């Protein structure tokens, strides 16, 4: 650990890109803007790698706010995330140079993209919760800007707005968590919080509440049930955005946040149980919805939801390093899946409906290979990346409870099915559209090649202990997350689990491969209709929350006018009293005299009778 100003520099590089491209983007011009943005991200990657190899770094500005430092911390956990964000981010940047070719907002796109990377780095590197929150909302802003990138179309901006508002619900949780932690411990620095939590001397239920608030924040950002509705709509943004933000990096921020606060979660059975429950729900919801979509990007978006559910389950069962491991592998194969989809969309001139695709393996051989690997990795085929991380989750689930293992196995069957459905609908069968597909340029192929390598290879750094007794990633991460003792499964059980999941995955992939090439049976069509609508959750929310809220706003607005009228009424009340009194002024002398006499009677009477 060293104190170095190079650490904020990692953030400053993409931020510089944001400023430069934002101000002078039009002058920098088309390919240059993209390359500038990409190289700055690469610079961050390299700088981060150097610092990580030197054993991490810290940087702090004390008393940024009273009692709250502006502190950054590069340890192994944030280092891994940093590598993923900048590494995969760099590849997606390069790919986007090709994908965004010819768009009138080319430089604006890369400016936003760099802003996102900068904000994401703040989120990852922040050690003080308010700093994390800067990044947290910063990525939300970038996400908002990028979903609504083509802002001329209402659907895009509506989706962007929805994403931002739903995320704000999570942000409220984050804010309240900060308030609670501050009132409990008087500090918001994560490393100090960890020490104070270990030291004890606080109410355990209050800590659970703080953890719950953090969980709400994480649920918003990672699109967990019930705050998942924004993620499918977020596909309105350009495909690189979906790949980078809504698959590889930002949506995993919630998982990262929870892992960062593992010290608060690990011996809290209620909270962990809740996380497992939410994760399971999300895994199934995402998987089932994905099976009903026709939009190629929405298919992938829902698979992302499902995989995020897997990560939450991993956090819930206490497998923190596995959650991060899954983030890494998922970043590779899901980015690859998105970019393959993007290449197909690109090849078909913007077509996103899978019913007008098919047969792409003949037209786009390289992309077909990418798609195949992505689908297999996502579906959990041995020995691709996705298999190992998912297997680790399954193993930990078995420790948590065999019933959970069974449910997760079911979820991974669904994962295999949706992966292969996507692959089959896009690449097999006959071409059902009218465009002339063309293979992507090299600038888009090469990033995919590298990601494909990752999707195949990164799994090997986290092999189960029965194969590789001391794998790379577990000790590396636990150094930062903290060592939480757990019973290792017996060797035999472990092997049985590995083999079962491998076999089940292969069987599911094979069955799905056959099934999705046939005509769909009627029961599937009925299921598909419901799944296409996301099981009507959106409609439900609109009816239950959004419309009543709007109505209440109207009502309150009218009420506020009434309030003013009330105050004005107070004034006219006095005026009315005045005019009432003015009516006494008749001008008739005898009337006044009568008043005089009456007053005399009353006053004298009061005087003598008193």
């Amino acid at each position, binding site marked *: 650990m060293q104190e170095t100003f190079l650490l904020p520099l990692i953030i400053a590089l993409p931020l510089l890109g944001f400023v430069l491209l934002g101000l002078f983007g039009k002058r920098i011009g088309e390919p240059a803007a993209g390359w500038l943005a990409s190289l700055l991200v690469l610079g961050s990657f390299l700088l981060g790698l150097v610092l990580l190899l030197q054993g991490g770094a810290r940087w702090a500005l004390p008393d940024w706010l009273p009692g709250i430092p502006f502190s950054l911390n590069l340890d192994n956990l944030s280092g891994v995330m940093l590598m993923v964000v900048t590494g995969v981010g760099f590849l997606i940047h390069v790919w986007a140079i090709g994908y965004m070719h010819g768009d009138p907002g080319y430089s604006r796109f890369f400016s936003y993209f760099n802003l996102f990377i900068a904000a994401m780095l703040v989120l990852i590197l922040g050690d003080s919760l308010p700093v994390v929150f800067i990044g947290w909302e910063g990525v939300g802003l970038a996400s908002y800007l990028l979903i609504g990138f083509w802002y001329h179309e209402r659907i895009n901006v509506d989706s962007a707005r929805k994403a931002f508002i739903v995320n704000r619900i999570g942000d409220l949780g984050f804010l309240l968590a900060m308030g609670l932690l501050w009132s409990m411990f008087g500090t918001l620095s994560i490393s100090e919080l960890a020490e104070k939590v270990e030291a004890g001397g606080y109410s355990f239920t209050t800590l659970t509440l703080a953890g719950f608030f953090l969980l709400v924040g994480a649920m918003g950002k990672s699109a967990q049930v019930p705050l998942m509705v924004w993620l499918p709509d977020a596909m309105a943004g350009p495909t690189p955005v979906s790949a980078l933000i809504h698959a590889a990096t930002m949506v995993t921020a919630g998982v990262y946040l929870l892992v960062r606060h593992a010290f608060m979660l690990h011996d809290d059975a209620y909270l962990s149980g809740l996380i497992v429950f939410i994760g399971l729900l999300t895994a199934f919801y995402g998987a089932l919805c994905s099976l009903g979509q026709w939009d190629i990007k929405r298919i992938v978006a829902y698979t992302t939801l499902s995989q995020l559910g897997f990560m939450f389950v991993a956090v819930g069962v206490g497998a923190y390093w596995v959650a991060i491991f899954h983030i890494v592998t998922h970043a590779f194969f899901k980015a690859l899946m998105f970019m393959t989809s993007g290449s197909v969309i690109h090849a078909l001139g913007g077509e996103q409906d899978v019913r007008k695709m098919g047969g792409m393996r003949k037209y786009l051989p390289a992309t077909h290979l990418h798609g195949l690997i992505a689908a297999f990795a996502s579906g959990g085929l041995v020995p691709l990346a996705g298999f190992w991380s998912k297997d680790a989750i399954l193993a930990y689930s078995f420790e948590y409870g065999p019933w959970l293992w069974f449910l997760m196995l079911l979820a991974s069957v669904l994962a295999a099915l949706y992966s292969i459905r996507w692959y089959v609908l896009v690449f097999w069968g006959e071409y059902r559209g009218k465009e002339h597909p063309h293979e992507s340029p090299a600038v888009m192929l090469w990033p995919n090649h590298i990601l494909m390598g990752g999707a195949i290879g990164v799994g090997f750094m986290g092999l189960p202990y029965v194969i590789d007794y001391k794998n790379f990633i577990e000790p590396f991460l636990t150094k930062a997350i903290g060592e939480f003792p757990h019973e290792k499964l017996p060797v035999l059980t472990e092997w049985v689990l590995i083999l079962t999941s491998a076999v089940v995955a292969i069987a599911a992939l094979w069955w799905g491969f056959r099934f999705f090439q046939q005509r769909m049976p009627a029961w599937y069509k009925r299921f598909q209709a419901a799944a296409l609508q996301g099981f009507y959750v959106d409609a439900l929310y609109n009816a239950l929350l959004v419309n009543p809220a709007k109505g209440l706003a109207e009502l309150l607005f009218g009420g506020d006018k009434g309030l003013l009228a009330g105050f004005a009424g107070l004034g006219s009340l006095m005026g009315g009293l005045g005019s009432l009194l003015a009516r006494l002024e008749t001008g008739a002398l005898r009337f006044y005299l009568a008043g005089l006499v009456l007053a005399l009677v009353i006053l*004298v009477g009061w005087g*003598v009778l008193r």
Partner: protein
Amino acid sequence: MSIGFWEVLALLVLVGTGLAVVRLQNAVHAALALIANFLVVAGVYVALEARFVAMIQIIVYAGAIVVLFLFVIMLLSAASANVGQDLLPRLSWVAALGALGLACVLTYAVTRFQPPVDAPALGGGLPQALGPLLYDPEKWLYALLVVGFLLLVATVAAVVLIEPERIVAATSHPAHPRQDQKPSPSAGQQKDEKAVVKR
């Protein structure tokens, strides 16, 4: 002080003439009733050892003031009490109630008065007794002067009120004759006023 025949008679006459003052429809009769009332009051004053005040009451009140009233009534030919329209007809009820209430309250108030047992004699209320008080600078001298002045002012005011035009014309400065006005505009106005009176 005992309540004998004369006291009761005086009381009845007082109330009766008082009611006559407020109820008679002919203003001349009402004024005459007022004179009667005042004369009875003067008699009461004598009984109450206020002889000088009784004299003044007769001379000034009954003699001068009410005669002035009579004069004005006759000048304006306003003997009838029923002039114009009664715009506040319901006021008579209020008036009756108010008067009744006032009577009750005041009677109650005066009957609760406890006079000192050994009140000194007043010396008949003769001028010899009142004079020293009236002209004593320690007592009422200045008040007397002020009242005298008030009377002067009132006299002048009465004159001004009744003949405004002539007075204004008389006091306009001889060094600055009004040249912008037609000859004797006030006279013309006066003529109008007279015409009004005639009509």
